[in-house]
């Protein structure tokens, strides 16, 4: 069983569209994260979230919003997609906030045309 899964694996869309990426973890973890990896492979955290607290990286545009229907899911909604949003988006989870080991999903490759 995949510990952290993401869908879709690939997403190609037009500029200006709204899209969502789904993430699910079956590890029973309390904290989930979204990262963006750009074309130069640089990994940057976008959000960390548990039941109590959402920590937003201040550089993330408000077109990006995480939504968590339950503890095992953290979806990423992106409004008005821009060319610069093209990247690989990784979901991750850890037992608790500040827990040392984060488990990453396989990534969603987003291409905005």
């Amino acid at each position, binding site marked *: 069983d995949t510990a*952290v899964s993401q869908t879709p694996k690939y997403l190609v869309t037009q500029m200006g569209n709204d899209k969502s990426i789904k993430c699910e973890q079956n590890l029973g973890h309390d904290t989930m*994260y979204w990262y963006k990896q750009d074309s*130069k*492979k*640089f*990994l*940057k*955290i976008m959000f*960390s979230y548990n039941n109590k607290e959402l*920590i937003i990286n201040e550089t993330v545009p408000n077109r990006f919003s995480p939504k968590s229907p339950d503890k095992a899911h953290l979806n990423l909604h992106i409004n008005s997609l821009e060319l610069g949003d093209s990247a690989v988006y*990784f979901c*991750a989870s850890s037992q608790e*906030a*500040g*827990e*040392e*080991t*984060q*488990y*990453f*999903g*396989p*990534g969603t490759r987003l291409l905005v045309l």
Partner: protein
Amino acid sequence: QQQVKQSPQSLIVQKGGISIINCAYENTAFDYFPWYQQFPGKGPALLIAIRPDVSEKKEGRFTISFNKSAKQFSLHIMDSQPGDSATYFCAASADNYGQNFVFGPGTRLSVLP
């Protein structure tokens, strides 16, 4: 203050050789330093990690050396194998950053057979 620098950007090593990747940080509040390994098309996975109370940690062929006064740490891969070819990220976290990870820019390692 939150930046983690990493070098080299890419590294080519012969099979059986030693791969060395270096990282440096500025924020003295960082208290946890993991290394993540990422294969093409996959999410990063924790390889090995260290805290500042020790100067070295070894797990199999992988060793982290940590120099607190210089604010530097490095990953050594002994007897490098073609299967070690991947991108390696150093990272750091601190309580005052919500224990979120700040990743280095990554090093692409190629081990030649």
